[in-house]
């Protein structure tokens, strides 16, 4: 049971890990993108649209080409979330709009876009299928290593996931190395801490903000793709993604802006998200206490936030200029 719990926790954690890694990279440039929940919805639905178009164009579903079945949704997802990231960067960096307002508008817009196309895609393209069920393409997304089943608990905990899950961990590690060790990562952090100083040092602040926000959005969008194509096996349901986007933002705080901590953190949050199902089997619980347990990730995040601000250690603070737009003449 513990093994299956860890397995499920990891699967719950992967979308959060993508969201958190993307948001960390974004926030390091000083952009507090509260549109991440919307970005993840758009990433998910873009992938769904791509996969839906591909599946409908096939004369025979069993003849699906594994390469295209993965590449089309993946590219659509990256493109969709890139465009949303671009929209956010344009409004906040070029037009210097307020980041909180823009982010919340992006969330409204993105969630609306996801649910709208999820609910109306069939009607719009005039396909004669009852619901969006992308089992053909999702099969390729959730394919795990063939020998994983023969390896007992080890196989189930470490080897039983689709390729996007491993990609999430790799991206998080790369992001962590990038921020800590590379020159560009250092520049990026400088932009987030003090854009005026970075500007004076010859760093193009706008370019960094644009790039980090767009790349961050693309990474976060993959979380949405993983959720619909792998976790729920290609069946889109409106609002199915739930509040995972906000949980990803919570995870950013919880892991004090470090993508490598986010790997463990996401599994922990994923576990907290589903632990009530398992506790139920050990000690009988009523439905009401489950709701209290679901509160845990947020409470823990608040405690971490308070603890870090009280300790006032430099490394565990949000980027200094988080949430502020930069205008050179304001100095």
């Amino acid at each position, binding site marked *: 049971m513990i093994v299956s719990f860890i397995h499920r926790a990891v699967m719950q954690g992967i979308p959060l890990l993508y969201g958190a890694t993307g948001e960390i990279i974004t926030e390091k440039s000083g952009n*507090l993108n509260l549109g991440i929940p919307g970005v993840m919805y758009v990433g998910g639905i873009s992938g769904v649209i791509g996969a839906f178009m591909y599946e409908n164009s096939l004369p025979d579903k069993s003849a699906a080409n594994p390469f295209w079945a993965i590449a089309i949704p993946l590219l659509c997802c990256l493109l969709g979330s890139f465009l949303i990231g671009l929209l956010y960067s344009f409004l906040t960096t070029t037009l210097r709009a307020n980041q909180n307002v823009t982010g919340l508008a992006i969330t409204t817009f993105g969630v609306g876009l996801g*649910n709208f196309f999820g609910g109306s895609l069939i009607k719009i393209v005039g396909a004669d299928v009852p619901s969006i069920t992308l089992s053909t393409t999702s099969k390729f997304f959730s394919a795990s290593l063939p020998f994983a089943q023969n390896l007992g608990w080890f196989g189930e905990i470490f080897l039983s996931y689709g390729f996007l899950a491993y990609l999430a961990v790799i991206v998080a590690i790369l992001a962590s190395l990038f921020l800590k060790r590379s020159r560009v990562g250092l520049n990026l952090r400088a932009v987030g801490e003090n854009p005026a100083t970075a500007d004076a040092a010859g760093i193009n602040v706008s370019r960094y903000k644009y790039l980090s926000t767009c790349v961050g959005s693309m990474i976060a969008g993959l979380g949405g793709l993983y959720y619909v194509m792998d976790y729920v096996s290609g069946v889109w349901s409106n609002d199915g993604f739930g509040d995972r986007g906000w949980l990803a933002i919570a995870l950013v705080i919880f892991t004090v802006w470090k993508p490598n901590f986010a790997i463990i953190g996401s599994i922990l949050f994923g576990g907290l998200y589903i632990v009530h199902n398992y506790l139920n089997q050990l000690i009988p619980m009523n439905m009401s206490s489950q709701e209290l347990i679901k509160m845990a990730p947020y409470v823990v995040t608040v405690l971490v936030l308070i603890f870090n601000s009280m300790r006032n250690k430099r490394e565990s603070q949000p980027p200094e200029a988080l949430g502020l737009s930069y205008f050179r003449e304001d100095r």
Partner: protein
Amino acid sequence: MTSAKERSTHEKPFHIVKRTDLPVWKSWLIRIAAVVASLIICAVIIILLTDDNPIQLYATMIQGAVGSPRRVWALLQGVAILLCISLAVTPAFKMRFWNIGAEGQVLIGGLGATAVMLLLGHSLPAPVVLLLVIVVSILCGAIWGVIPAIFKAFWNTNETLFTLMMNYIAIQLVSYFTYIWSSNKGNNVINTINVDNHAGWLELPPSIDRYGYLLNILIVAVLTVLMYFYLNNSKQGYEIAVVGESINTAKYAGINVKKVIIRTMLISGALCGVAGMLLVSGTDHTITPNTAAGRGFTAIVVSWLAKFNPLFMVLTSLLLVFMEKGALEISTVFGLNSSFSDIITGIIIFFIIGSEFFINYSIKRTHAKEAQTK
């Protein structure tokens, strides 16, 4: 390296300057132009999706928003609630305290009202219950709002992230209590509370108020005027503005910044509590985790678009609620998904946010001569 950078900035054909001298009418002209532009874009999108003529479309929209007396009242009720929450977040925003926890503060206020109505509704006389509902919901909202403020004041805890998390804690608390108090065991729905004696219901007799929205609207109208004077004509409102401009200036002027932060968030949370009470005791007479329905977030946009001016907020909240109801009608008539209204709202907000740039900044041509000499 410096020379390369200098060249790159001066070779740009345009540069951006902050402007301070734009007349008010011009700034409103820009905003109206933005709304019109966004409506045109929306129309194009709708036509692409539905193949219907645009005039027909806008007629449907207006029909949906104000097509019958009932719809007009529902529109005004929607405006009142959104406006109330927008008023609530405004003092905090003016102080540059990003309270994005209105959603949670409204819910906790509503939860307080629900608790009083459910638990005391049949043991105390109705007027006492109503009084308790008002006091408890305001208190609950204020407490939920002041917790992040205390931490901000003493330890500089990031208030945006703190208030955001408090929303979800509130939502889970409400879903916990909807299980506990559910009318039929296990279906987590609280049926309309106190149908028999109307204890704790905030209402006027049906002869005066046919649809049951009038009292809500009147209360919010009074609050709007009060908030206007509080922000513009009171000492406390002035202190809020100074703290928002610069904390150091405020300290130098002898303002107790900690006190102002905590006091302002008490007011902000309390007003959210009022909104929660208007929703639970004034309209729905029950609560669900979705009672606030995202208004806590929309209110932020409303307040910001109105430049934190309570009177302009009437207009901005009217615009957003009107578009939402109109888009909802379009989606029903044309058989589209109801989330369509969120897309429309999003597009309009993007345009208005973008237009602020042209109000605050002007793009000037860099003169050729100037570029050469430098």
